[in-house]
């Protein structure tokens, strides 16, 4: 049979070729850009050096006008130092007399400088008081020389520009280009899946199922419309072979029945072997029409991936710069600290998502998943567009609330879409696809959003998110309009208040939710969505850097979650993975006690990603293990509903807690304090679950 990873091997090979081609193309673009930068920036920098030189020269002339001998100027070295500090691209400065003898200098003297000082063309500059300045390349430096003259020529001022400054400028772009490469790789895999893979996988899957059906003797004919591609043609041929068999079978059965109707006595006995043969055929094979199967195109789960990816990407793109944007639109709210105000839009967004989800589930069932997604994505698009035009914080809060509502609608409806189209056998696969789309968007979104915000501004970046959300509407519109859910199916419901209260006071449930799930979300939104973007900008970095940091977190999740999920499932000690994950997350912020360097911040995000990745998969599975008694009493929906509600309230609390901590202890203190809180929760969870005998339940948490 077809090997399971056959298609993925093909995808990776294709992605490899595309990536190699893209890298070569990017190298070509970078090479030509370097040439343009060199040609255009060097003269501009020389011009700037001349302006700076004129300022230094004015100082020198002021000193000599007060009677200080030109050869005994005091503080020239310090003046050069100040110039270097303000203009890092200048690495050497010198003053020579009219004969080219070096009087004062600062910086590493390049090879050939002495010859250059004595060159007749340069000495001519010094002897001509009307000369402006002259540019020459010496070694690795671009030199400008300008005369210093009062009533007579005194000497020459030289300023050296580092020849590598253009390389340094391009090196800064290089980091963003690497981000573009990583994002391109993920885009490639998503697009392969969207434009070719979904149909290919579905076609090959159908082919595999057809082979299995025929092996089991099922030759019933399906009346499907096949795509006009290689796989479609192949399936049509198989359909034709089955049709021929069915026609032959029907003909033989008809002939036998005709003969049986007219046969009597010995003639009837003569037909007995044929009748036995037909019985044998009927017991071994099935012919006729296949029942109308739900496994049609509507069931193609892959189709949800592209719209979900595009929609989540629109939201994720705002993560790295939203707090900075809010900071820009800040309006003083009496009695509320600006730090809290900056966190408000994230908090309200998360709160709407948390509170809306239990009710939106049943709503999307009633109106239909596709329609609910269309409505949600439309609302979010309006929210993004309006946010890009926000006047101040007040209307921004309204637009972000719309965004939150739209996000919750799309998220819940997409989740329902997967639930409706999966059974016990393929639910995990369905959710892997759902989470996969979200994770890829999480990797690509913040980094690209940060780059956009740095270059085209916050407002235009929000407009790009609006366009992306609009594109998701187009993809959602292509989803099947028919709902596979039977009208008789039991509708899902939001947890009732008495269930919420009962679970809130349930020790087992709250050990898991209060000590693990909520703290994990608090540190996620508090650190990743609030502290990291603001702290990075506060230490003089850009939103693009914040995006790269968040990308580190997402890449850790993408890489570690599948591994930790498998390991925790195999070991059946999910509590240990949750404990270790929480403790690692809790230790992450502690690194800032050692140093506040940028590398340490990278370590914080790396450890946080690792910790969260270790615990996240095991956490929801633990609900089934830890709370089987509660599930028996209140039902699976209610327990998971309350669990998700509290977990998402943790999301909403994260920015609030982080902002309050910033007020008291500043950014570094907030990182440390929020991590310490999670560390304490992790230790408490470890102690609370020590010696607890878990029932081995294979959980498939929604």
């Amino acid at each position, binding site marked *: 049979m077809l*090997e399971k990873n*056959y298609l993925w091997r*093909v995808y990776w*090979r*294709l992605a490899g*070729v*595309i990536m*190699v*081609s*893209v890298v*070569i*193309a*990017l190298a*070509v*673009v970078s090479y*030509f*850009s370097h040439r*343009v*930068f060199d040609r*255009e920036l060097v003269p*501009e920098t020389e*011009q*700037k050096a001349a*302006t700076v030189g*004129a*300022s230094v020269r004015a100082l020198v002339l002021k000193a000599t006008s007060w009677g200080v001998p030109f050869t005994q100027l005091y503080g020239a070295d310090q003046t050069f130092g100040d110039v270097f500090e303000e*203009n890092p691209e200048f690495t050497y400065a010198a003053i020579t007399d009219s004969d080219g003898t070096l009087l004062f200098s600062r910086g590493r003297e390049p090879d050939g400088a002495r010859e250059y000082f004595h060159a007749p063309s340069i000495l001519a500059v010094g002897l001509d008081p009307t000369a402006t300045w002259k540019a020459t390349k010496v070694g690795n430096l671009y030199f400008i020389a300008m005369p210093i003259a009062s009533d007579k020529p005194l000497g020459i001022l030289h300023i050296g520009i580092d020849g590598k400054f253009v390389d340094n*400028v*391009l090196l800064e*772009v290089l980091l963003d*280009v690497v981000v*573009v490469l990583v994002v*391109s790789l993920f*885009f*490639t895999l998503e*697009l392969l899946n969207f*434009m*070719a893979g979904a149909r290919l996988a579905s076609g090959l899957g159908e*082919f595999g199922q057809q082979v299995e059906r*025929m092996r089991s*003797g099922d*030759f019933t004919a399906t009346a499907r419309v096949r795509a*006009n591609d*290689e*796989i479609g043609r*192949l399936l049509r*041929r*198989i359909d034709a*072979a089955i049709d021929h068999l069915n026609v032959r*079978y029907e003909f033989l059965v008809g002939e036998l029945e005709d*003969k049986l109707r007219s046969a009597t006595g010995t*003639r009837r006995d003569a*037909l007995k*072997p044929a009748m036995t*043969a*037909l019985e044998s*055929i009927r017991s071994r094979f099935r012919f006729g029409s296949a029942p109308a199967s739900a496994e049609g195109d509507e069931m193609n789960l892959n189709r949800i991936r592209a719209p979900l990816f595009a929609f989540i990407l629109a939201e994720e793109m705002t993560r790295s710069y939203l707090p900075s944007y809010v900071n820009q639109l800040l309006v003083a709210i009496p009695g509320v600290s600006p730090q809290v105000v900056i966190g408000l839009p994230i908090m309200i967004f998360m709160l709407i998502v948390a509170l809306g989800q239990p009710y939106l589930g049943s709503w999307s069932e009633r109106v239909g998943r596709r329609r609910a997604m269309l409505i949600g994505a439309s609302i979010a698009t309006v929210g993004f567009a309006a946010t890009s035009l926000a006047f101040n914080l007040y209307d921004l809060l309204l637009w972000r609330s719309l965004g939150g509502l739209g996000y919750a609608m799309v998220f819940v409806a997409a989740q329902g879409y997967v639930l409706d189209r999966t059974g016990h056998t393929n639910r995990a696969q369905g959710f892997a696809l759902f989470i996969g789309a979200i994770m890829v968007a999480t990797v690509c979104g913040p980094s*690209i959003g940060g780059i956009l915000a*740095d*270059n085209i501004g916050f407002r235009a970046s929000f407009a790009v998110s609006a366009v992306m959300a609009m594109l998701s509407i187009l993809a959602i519109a292509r989803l099947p309009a028919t709902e596979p859910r039977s009208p008789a199916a039991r509708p899902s419901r939001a947890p009732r208040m008495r269930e919420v209260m009962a679970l809130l006071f349930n020790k087992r449930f709250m050990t898991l939710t209060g000590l693990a799930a909520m703290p994990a979300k608090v540190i996620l939104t508090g650190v990743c969505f609030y502290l990291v973007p603001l702290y990075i900008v506060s230490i003089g970095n850009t939103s693009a850097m914040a995006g790269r940091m968040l990308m580190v977190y997402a890449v850790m999740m993408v890489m570690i979650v599948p591994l930790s999920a498998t390991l925790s499932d195999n070991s059946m000690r999910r509590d240990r993975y949750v404990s270790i994950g929480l403790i690692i997350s809790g230790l992450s912020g502690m690194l800032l006690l050692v140093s506040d360097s940028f590398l340490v911040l990278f370590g914080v995000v790396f450890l946080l990603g690792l910790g969260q990745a270790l615990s996240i998969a095991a956490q929801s599975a633990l609900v089934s293990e830890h709370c089987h008694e509660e599930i028996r009493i209140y039902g699976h929906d209610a327990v998971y509903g309350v669990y998700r509600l509290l977990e998402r309230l943790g999301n909403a609390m994260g920015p609030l807690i982080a902002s309050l901590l910033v007020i008291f202890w500043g950014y570094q203190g907030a990182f440390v304090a929020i991590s310490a809180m999670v560390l304490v929760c992790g230790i408490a969870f470890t102690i609370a679950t020590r010696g607890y005998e878990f029932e081995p339940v294979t959980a498939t948490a929604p």
Partner: protein
Amino acid sequence: MGTIRFRFIMVALVVSFFAVGMAAFLNYFKYKSTINNIVKSRVLVVGRGIENTVQASLQLGMQFAELQQLPQMMAREKSADRLVRAIDVFDTSGQILYSTDSGRVGQKVPTVWTSAAQRSKSTEWSTDETDDLVAGISIKNAFDLTVGYLALRYSREEVERAATTAGREIMLAALASFVALAIVAPLALIVVIRRFERDLRTLEAAASHLEDRNQPPPAAGSAFDGAINHLRASLREANKALDDLRAKLDAAG
């Protein structure tokens, strides 16, 4: 060209367009911000000279509104760099006290100037929301209190002309890279997916002979060999059972 191959090529083109487009976008904006910064810092060098003079006067006890030598100095500094169009010195309320454009004295500066100056975390500030680009310095007295601001207006066209020239060249390079990529990547893809296409062709060929009763073609070493054999075996078995029924019906007469 097969449909699947076409789709794979489309993926390559879309990704290439995104990557090359983003790289060109990044390079262009980096160039623009770098040239902006270079020009701005060059203009601010001129401003620093004026600021130092104002500071020195203030430290001698002179009033900010009574610096009589300042306009001449500002005019001299303005003429030192052709890029600078005008220099204004205004107080904290935004009223211009000194200007190289004497007609502006007494007028109010645009509010974006004062808000940009007040928002800035350092003494330097800038804004690009007016026709000219503006770079400025906050002027502080000996007690570190801001008494006014210095604003240097400089030509937007000069900066944008440089950015447009560079942008055009970067775009051309990106376009050329994309075209080359659009030619090379599909060829490379065709090489890579040859085996996959061969597997599909084998499968299609085998499927077209599914109902042949003669010997099956030898295994092609494709990933689908097993599936094809199963298909043929299933059909053969079903046909054999139907043949048997046919024979028995014929035998019954």
